[in-house]
């Protein structure tokens, strides 16, 4: 048996050694980890506009991704009234944190990619999947109506089923060319449906993942809806 004094001494020394090693490790790896985190998020955004990039996204190096955001991407933040908020960059906004606020108080990040065909506007959406949060990026063509591309990600959807929203490139491609405004100029957004009846505004869901598909649908209706005022300001006045 060891004395209580010895036990206390042992635990204190063990904890100190472990703490020292870990804090040293943390400071050594933190810059690289933070850069990785940023690049990972930015690759997610770029997935939505992959067809407009010079080469496939997987061939972009980390530095090229960051560089592209510096040189070919504008970013700003709007509120739900469509006003641009000063001194804020889209990178500073955590859409997860904004999602917890009441809808009218949310700040909405906007990225604009300067493509050869004109500005491509990228909106961020966030919502609930079947098991956990899902989020995505919707890229709009210069007419602010036609979808140029979409990208989704999720926290914990079922692999092979709900996770297909991210893993299956065919699902992303289904969104391209859909319109978010109807002929009368009302924002109808895009719906994910089991049976597509209105091909201009509806996208075929994922078999076996109805609840995740419904989540994507709700996220798009709600998420794009928040940008309504901003988008209407941009539309050509008729």
């Amino acid at each position, binding site marked *: 048996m060891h004395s209580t004094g010895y*036990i206390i001494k*042992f635990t204190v020394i063990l904890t100190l050694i*472990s703490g020292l090693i870990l804090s040293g*490790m943390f400071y050594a*790896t933190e810059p*690289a980890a933070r850069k*990785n985190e940023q690049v*990972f998020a930015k690759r997610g955004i770029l997935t939505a506009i992959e067809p407009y990039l010079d080469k496939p996204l997987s061939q972009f190096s980390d530095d090229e991704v960051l560089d592209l955001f510096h040189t070919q991407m504008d970013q700003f933040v709007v509120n739900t009234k469509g006003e641009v908020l000063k001194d804020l960059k889209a990178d500073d906004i955590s859409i997860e944190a904004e999602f917890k606020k009441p809808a009218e108080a949310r700040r909405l990040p906007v990225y604009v990619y300067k493509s050869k065909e004109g500005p491509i506007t990228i909106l961020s959406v966030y919502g609930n999947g079947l098991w956990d949060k899902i989020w995505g990026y919707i890229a709009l063509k210069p007419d602010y109506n036609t979808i140029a591309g979409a990208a989704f990600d999720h926290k914990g959807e079922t*692999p092979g089923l709900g996770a297909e929203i991210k893993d299956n*490139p065919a699902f992303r491609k289904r969104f391209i060319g859909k319109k978010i405004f109807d002929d009368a100029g009302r924002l109808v957004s895009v719906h994910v449906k089991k049976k597509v009846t209105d091909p201009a505004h509806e996208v075929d869901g994922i078999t076996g993942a109805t609840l995740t598909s419904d989540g994507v649908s709700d996220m798009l209706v709600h998420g794009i809806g928040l940008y309504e005022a901003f988008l209407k300001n941009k539309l050509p006045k008729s």
Partner: protein
Amino acid sequence: MTTTKQKSKLFGPKERRLLIDPLNDNNPITVQILGICSALAVTSLVYKAVVMAVAVMFVIALSNLITALVRNYIPSQVRMIAQLVIIATLVTIVELTLKANNYAIYKELSVFIGLIITNCIVMGRLEAFAMSNSPWRSFLDGIGNSLGYGIILVIVGIVRELFGRGTLFAGSPIQLNIIGKSNESVQYLIDTSHGWMSWYTNNGLLALPVSSLFIIGIIVWIQRSYNRKLVDVS
């Protein structure tokens, strides 16, 4: 004479058993049924299974070694907590390293790296072996057990990825597409699926974690039908 004696002492038949036993007779997954949770969760892709196996090997081997080095100083009243501190420190080192060097796989493995702390194999080896054996033998025991764990993980991963997705090593630099239709947005090192193998339709069940239970069950069955020592005759 002395050199051969020392050599056999460093790596004699007993030490060999430490490495080989956990591969078959005393496999942590199929015989002791430990570490099942992570075997279900991280085996959807072979690449993930390999990274997990390497991470577990690092943690078990080093925590065994460290525990064996300080085993005579650990007060028995707090030995579990001391072991846990050692394991947790090593796991956090793995986590930080992955986060800084391979963020994509860090994201994929997510909580399961952190959960190595609670992997029963690690603590089981510390309690059962490292607390009463020399550092060198404890280290070998750790390598052996993590190999036994890793082998099952990789076998399950190969079955699940090949028949669930038609690929092998997807996500790693050497991804291959073997059967079924290929994903056009990915560049494969070898793609044999356009020819006669394209008839295969991926089995979605194998992409789900439950399928690992069936596969591990089948592995246990095959192993026991070959290795009569494991069969419980009572």
